[in-house]
């Protein structure tokens, strides 16, 4: 065979492998509204940047007629590339090849690219679209999953890990996304569950559709497994590109700075928050009023919407925002909100992203269901995460900060570097109404005009405690600031905190209330 023939043969082999599972399978993929695995990678990455490895890898299963079966790339595409110039390691499972089923070689391709990501200290992006374990390979398939989970865990807090669920991701397979930092789902395409509708029907005699069990909307809104919800794959890739600009390549770096821009939000900040502590407002408006270009990337927008978390920039540098959301469930902390915030705080701390906390909450959500769901141990996660974090921590108390909620929301007591409060802030054990009703219960009940006495007592408590001065007098608040000065104070606090260094006692790791 001369050189030219060898080149021709090589090209033919590559073309065949690039065809994946073939024309019929490709059409089926298109019919279910999904892009092909290779097209997904090429759409997400910068043009011409994708470089593929392990294209010629083959499975070595000899049982159940597998010996004769050639599976292109063993059902997964792996490589490196860039997103907006940002280097990444990436893999995409190819559903057209044996349903994207995971065998040992398939898994080893994934673990190899994961090892690359760790050695190169660049983010890992995994695109999941798989029917699950390759049953013909038996325990080897399970071994493959285990090796992936181990690497996901080892990479946690070292490199950012992004999972994109673009098809089924069921059974044990879902634990890889669950271990990663950000999970993206697309409406009507993503499906995540441990046990599928058929098993549920057989074992529990309960009927549920795949969509209602683990569809994109459910994972993004109810279970909270997903962080980003998109209407289409294209929309999903745009969201990933946007997110990537806000996070660093690895935990030894800071996110790339951008040119500083003033906020574009037009409502003056002091007009956003109503005076009366019970009136709702959208805390994201406060974020937009203070951050660069009013550009805020919200994470888990639809899950536990009573707390808002996400990334923004201040003078071009990424910051993590945590804010109570009075517009939803009055902004209370509950099981889900604590869980959501704690995970986000730990991401920011791991990746050198300063935290800004915006406080306005009436406390924890009361209820038997919350108590039984473990609001104590879940609520404790937020205390742990804030206390543990050593990145700059800046807190702004916008209005009410009551009880345990005040402590939890990055108070000075949990190690905030700077705590600012607006003049309308109420830092107290609870709201004046509730407090007066408890402290003066007998006096009110015994009064000639109980309602008048009640109002009088509410006023008395309110005059004494419903303000930021008591907390400021004790130094729990560092500065009372004019709302219009919020951005200026935040920028200054971030600037002076740049070299912050916190020394922790030596330990293997803490034992947070997971």
């Amino acid at each position, binding site marked *: 065979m001369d050189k030219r023939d060898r080149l021709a043969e090589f090209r033919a082999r590559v073309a065949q492998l690039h065809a994946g599972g073939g024309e019929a399978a490709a059409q089926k993929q298109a019919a279910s509204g999904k892009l092909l695995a290779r097209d997904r990678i090429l759409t997400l990455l910068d043009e011409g940047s994708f470089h593929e490895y392990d294209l010629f890898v083959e499975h070595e299963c000899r049982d159940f007629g597998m010996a004769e079966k050639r599976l292109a790339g063993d059902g997964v595409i792996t490589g490196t590339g860039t997103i907006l110039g940002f280097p990444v390691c990436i893999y995409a499972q190819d559903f057209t090849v044996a349903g994207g089923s995971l065998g040992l070689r398939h898994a080893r391709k994934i673990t190899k690219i994961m090892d690359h990501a760790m050695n190169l200290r660049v983010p890992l992006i995994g695109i999941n679209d798989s029917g699950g374990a390759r049953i013909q390979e038996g325990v080897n398939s399970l071994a493959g999953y285990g090796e992936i989970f181990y690497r996901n865990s080892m990479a946690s807090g070292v490199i950012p890990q992004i999972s994109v669920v673009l098809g089924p991701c069921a059974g044990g397979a879902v634990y890889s996304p669950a271990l990663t930092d950000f999970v993206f789902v697309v409406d009507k395409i993503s499906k995540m569950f441990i046990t599928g509708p058929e098993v549920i029907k057989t*074992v*529990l*005699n*309960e009927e549920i559709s795949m969509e209602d069990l683990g569809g994109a*909307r459910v994972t*993004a*809104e*109810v279970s909270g497994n997903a962080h980003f*919800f998109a209407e289409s794959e294209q929309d999903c890739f745009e969201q990933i590109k946007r997110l990537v600009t806000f996070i660093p390549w690895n935990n030894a770096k800071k996110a790339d700075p951008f040119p500083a821009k003033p906020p574009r939000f037009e409502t003056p900040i002091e007009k956003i928050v109503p005076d009366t502590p*019970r*009136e*709702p407002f959208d805390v994201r408006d406060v974020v937009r009023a203070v951050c660069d270009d009013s550009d805020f990337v919200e994470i888990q927008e*639809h899950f*536990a*919407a*009573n707390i808002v978390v996400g990334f923004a920039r201040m003078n071009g540098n990424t910051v993590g925002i945590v804010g109570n959301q*009075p*517009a*939803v*469930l*009055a*902004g*209370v902390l509950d099981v*889900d909100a604590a869980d959501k915030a704690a995970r986000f705080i730990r991401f920011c701390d791991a990746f050198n992203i300063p935290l800004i906390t915006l406080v306005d909450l*009436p*406390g924890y*959500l*009361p209820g*038997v*269901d919350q108590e*039984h769901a473990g609001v104590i141990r879940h609520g404790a996660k937020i205390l742990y995460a804030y206390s543990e974090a050593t990145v700059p921590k800046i807190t702004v108390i916008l209005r009410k900060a*009551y009880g345990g909620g005040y402590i939890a929301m990055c108070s000075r007591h949990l190690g905030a570097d700077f705590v600012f409060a607006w003049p309308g802030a109420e830092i107290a054990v*609870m*709201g004046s*109404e*509730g407090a007066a*009703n408890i402290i003066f219960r007998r006096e009110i009940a015994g009064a000639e005009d109980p309602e008048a006495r009640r109002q009088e007592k509410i006023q008395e408590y309110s005059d004494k405690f419903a303000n930021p001065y008591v907390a400021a007098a004790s130094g729990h608040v560092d500065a009372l600031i004019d709302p219009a000065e919020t951005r200026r104070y935040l920028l200054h606090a971030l600037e002076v905190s740049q070299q912050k260094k916190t020394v922790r006692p030596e330990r293997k790791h803490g034992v947070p209330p997971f």
Partner: protein
Amino acid sequence: MTESTEPETLNINGVLYPTRLTRKYRERKPVTIRNPMEVRAVIPGEIVEILVEPGQPVERGDGVLVLEAMKMRNAVSAAAAGTVTKIHVEPGSLVAKGTLLVELE
């Protein structure tokens, strides 16, 4: 996503806050406190054996029947001591989760 447009309020420490309730909050299931004198199916399955008779005294932890579910024979036991007053199922009965199986007194 599935936002409600109705004006809603949430009561925290006696104060009513006008706010939007989440789908998960609105659809939360009421918590029921289990009555230890009622033996119920914790999992759907088939009753394969009944170990007690009406009028028989049982101690806490005594098996009252065997429920086959998830390919396992699960012993269902009494959560409190008492006397069996009523048996609602027989061998072969297919029961849903939460079905009342045996009553004690």
